[in-house]
Structures are given as C-alpha cells and as structure tokens.
C-alpha cells in the first residue's frame, strides 16, 4: 500500500523556468510533509517542509503548497538552476504531537533535470 505517491518519475525543464514537482498521499492522518533532495552517491538532504496547519511555505527559490482536501502537495522551484538537477523525494509523517523522532513515509522520487 503506497501511501505517498509521486506519479512523475522524471521532469525536464529549462534553466530559469519553473519546476513543479507533485506528490499525493492517501493517509488522512499525515500532518507534516517534507521534501528531500538526493544527488547520486549521496544521502537525501532536507529541503523544505510544511505543517498541515499551513497551505504554503516558502524558502528562497523553493515553495511548497499543500492542498489538504485533495491530499496533494507540490514543490515549486523558481528559477530553476542546473545545480537543482537531482532526485526529489516527498515524505510524510502523521504522529500528531511528538517530542522526538517521527516516522517518515517516502514517495518513489522524481528525477529533475534542469537543462542549461
């Protein structure tokens, strides 16, 4: 049962344009969402997150949008740069109020390629 799905295995955009990566989830208990970026031969690195009490969170060129009714989130990168080329993972957590160490459920990832 894939509770977090990224339906696009790959995305190719031109440098300077917007990249939009999508993620859908099925478990209504998820209340916190994260995006990770992964370069080859490295571990995933945290990029940006959003709590279910918000519908948007912005950090520089990166913005995450959350649509709870549709159980959908998206990551926007504007403007896209060649260094953004990587695999992007969506992850979700649904443990409510915790003091430490939540469990994350990851999507399959989307390979973003930004062409110069």
């Amino acid at each position, binding site marked *: 049962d894939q509770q*977090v799905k*990224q339906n696009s*295995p790959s995305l190719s955009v031109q440098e300077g344009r917007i990249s939009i990566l999508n993620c859908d989830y099925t478990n209504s208990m998820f209340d*916190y969402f*994260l995006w*990770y970026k992964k370069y080859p*031969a*490295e*571990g*995933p*690195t*945290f990029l940006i*997150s959003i709590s279910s009490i918000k519908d948007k969170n912005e950090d520089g060129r990166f913005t995450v949008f959350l649509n709870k009714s549709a159980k959908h989130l998206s990551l926007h990168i504007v403007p896209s740069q060649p260094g953004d080329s990587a695999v992007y*993972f969506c*992850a979700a*957590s649904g443990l409510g109020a*915790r*003091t*430490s*160490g*939540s*469990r*994350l*459920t*990851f*999507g*399959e*990832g989307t390979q973003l390629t930004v062409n110069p």
Partner: protein
Amino acid sequence: EAGVAQSPRYKIIEKRQSVAFWCNPISGHATLYWYQQILGQGPKLLIQFQNNGVVDDSQLPKDRFSAERLKGVDSTLKIQPAKLEDSAVYLCASTGGVYEQFFGPGTRLTVL
C-alpha cells in the same frame, strides 16, 4: 558539525553470505533510523531506535535482518543470510528533533 557517517560505502557479496553495516549518527541525536532504498523506489524504514531502545521494527525482516544500537550511539545492521532481493542502498539517518532527519551517504549492497 560532522554529519552521519556510514561504512562501508560499497559491498559486494554472494547470496547466503552475511554482511554488516555501521552507522555513527550526529552527536547528540537520540533517534536513529535504518532505511532500505531499492533502485527506483523511495527509502523504506527498516528500524527506528530511540537512544538504545527499538521504537519501530515492524518492517524489518527479522528472519534475516538484525540491528543493534549499543550505548545509544553507533549502530550496526546485519543481514544473514543475504538474498538477491537485498541488493539496495542502506541508509542511516538520525535526528535530535521531531521531523527533520539527517541522512548518511549510504552503503550500496550488491548480492550476486
């Protein structure tokens, strides 16, 4: 601040052999995770430790996989005996907070 360290980075073994992976989390991080990432898939949690106690090992194939975190710091993950389908990247992560996890570079295991 030093990141999560893992070794070895690569390992090739024959099926039915045993293998062990080592992880040193970020200093002070109480929670440690082991993930399995099969090619083309996202990381899948195998086991979660809080200090030296197991919080969640529901997805660990306990007939062949074992893990320990003695003294609440370093951790080892062992596979015995290995199967072809165990070929994957094994990622270790740690956190001192609630949500954001910091990952090591992973160990790429190939089972022949």
